[in-house]
């Protein structure tokens, strides 16, 4: 059995290491200490976790004020409420004001499964990536989560980091180096490129294995940074493989697929398929059941790639 990791663990450990080195580091939370797994941080660094209660708008505003006062605030809250409730604070107080705030959206996608669409965060990438001056990162596994968090701490400026809860296998080896704005090539291929991020990268890799058995060579790119997007890697994929399938645990409107399509359609049009939640409120079901239900699976990715291959190659 492959080991599955809850990325919040790597996140919390790394944040403690950062706090040990950097006295400016602090957390702002919304009654979310347990759900963000930052209880140990609170114990180790008394006074450096500011819990504003169930009040997300205040939470993000307070973080902007802390940044103004020279602190390095990491806002830790369920991604659905952080982005949904405090979007204008994210835009005006953080991004537009260029406040050095790190927005850490916990348990995104459909991780809350049966709790329903109010708790699913499948619009967060569309919302955040539409905002100027906001770096948007979706790590795929614990190593990438830790490294992206390190990047956010060292970089001056607003960052939105999506920290997954649903168990994921490791997709990067220990030598992996996260570079902001750069896709990571996980598998070479020449017939089609699968571009994925976050919890579904492992499914893209599984799909590539299935496609190899079909005689199709699939390239796999891990596109952790959604904004700024890696145009070069996307254009190379379009030129060299002629077909692109994107996969994300997000609505198919305005997320990773949209970001890739903006580049492809304006600079080097090739046929694409966008896999994700098809613009509906999900029915009741667990996170893994919902991913199956919507075909956000290796089989679903394979089927989309086969469809593109059957269409023939763009001239």
């Amino acid at each position, binding site marked *: 059995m492959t080991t599955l990791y809850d990325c919040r663990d790597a996140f919390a450990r790394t944040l403690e290491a950062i706090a040990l080195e950097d006295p400016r580091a602090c957390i702002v939370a919304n*009654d*979310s*200490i*347990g*759900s963000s797994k930052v209880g140990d941080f609170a114990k180790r660094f008394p006074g450096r976790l500011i*819990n*504003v*209660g*169930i*009040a*997300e*708008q*205040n939470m993000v505003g307070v973080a902007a004020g802390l940044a103004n006062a020279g602190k390095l605030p990491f806002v830790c809250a369920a991604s*659905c*409420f952080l982005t*949904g*409730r405090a979007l204008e604070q994210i835009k005006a107080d953080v991004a537009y004001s260029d406040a050095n705030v790190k927005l850490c959206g916990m348990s995104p996608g459909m991780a*809350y499964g*049966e*709790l*329903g669409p*109010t*708790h699913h965060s499948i619009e967060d990438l569309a919302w955040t990536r539409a905002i100027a001056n906001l770096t948007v990162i979706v790590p795929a596994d614990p190593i990438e989560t830790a490294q992206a968090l390190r990047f956010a701490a060292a970089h001056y400026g607003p960052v939105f980091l999506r920290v997954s809860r649903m168990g994921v296998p490791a997709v990067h080896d220990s030598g992996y180096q996260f570079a902001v704005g750069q896709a990571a090539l996980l598998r070479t291929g020449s017939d089609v490129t699968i571009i994925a991020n976050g919890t579904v990268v492992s499914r893209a890799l599984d799909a590539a294995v299935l496609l190899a058995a079909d005689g199709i060579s699939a390239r796999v790119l891990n596109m952790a940074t959604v904004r700024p997007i890696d145009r070069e890697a996307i254009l190379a994929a379009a030129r060299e493989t002629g077909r692109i399938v994107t996969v994300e645990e997000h609505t198919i409107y305005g997320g990773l697929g949209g970001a890739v399509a903006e580049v492809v359609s304006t600079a080097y049009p090739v046929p694409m398929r966008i896999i994700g939640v098809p613009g509906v409120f999900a*029915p*009741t*079901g*667990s996170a893994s*059941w919902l991913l199956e*239900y919507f075909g956000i699976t290796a089989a679903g990715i394979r089927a989309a790639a086969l469809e593109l291959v059957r269409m023939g190659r763009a001239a």
Partner: protein
Amino acid sequence: MVDTVQVDKLQQLAATIRRHDLTMVHRARLGHIGGELSAIDILTTLYFAVLNVDPSRPDWPDRDRFILSKGHAAAALYTTLAVAGFMPIEELATFMQPLSRLNGHPNRTKVPGVETNTGPLGHGFPVAVGCAIGAKLSNATWRTFVLTGDGELQEGSNWEAAMAAAHYRLDNLTLIVDRNRLQQGDLTERTMGLDPLGDKFRAFGWYVREVDGHDHGALLDLFQSLPFNPGQPSCIIANTHKGQGVSFMRDQVAWHHKVPNDEEYALALSELERGED
């Protein structure tokens, strides 16, 4: 004065609803048992003695509106609605199952009797204000009731709603606060203090009364004297206990969303059975 036969009936109904709720959460391995058990006496009193609703006509325009703003207590609402006849009791067994109408937060497009979709805290109260303004605009006599958590009141949207309700003199609106003094991670007063809560609502223009939120007779007395003062919205601060009815859950923050194992389930069920008489 309150009718003791009616109070006995409410107590029995509340015990039944508590047992259904516990069974649903145990079976689904998900739910918010603590805040459900704290709200069930309020829900029971409303649905079986106060609200003018008709399960055979959930869309009847002149019905009283009830909004569960603390949507995480959905199982308590589902059970109450089922016992009141809005849906078959057997359907409760589908709670959280794939494609069930009953997910972790109430959905008005699927479940009869639900007025608005809640789950993110701080949404139900503003919607209730809109219902009450709408009734006034139509010169209608139906009333609106909204139940919030106490931790939930940390959301600023509630205070915007509180201001609007007094401004529009909504004496057809009643807010009930489930004052169990606990939120998800800790006591409310250790997280972000709310006291003196009654004075806050008074300062916002509300007529406030406090009650033991597990005393059906006292709750009924208050509901029967609504509005507390013509021209003002009414606020009931219901002092409750999270996990009420199960000794090892009562006032314990861990039971906000902990799920009982088989042994705990059996124990809790036997306590709830004994509590009936």
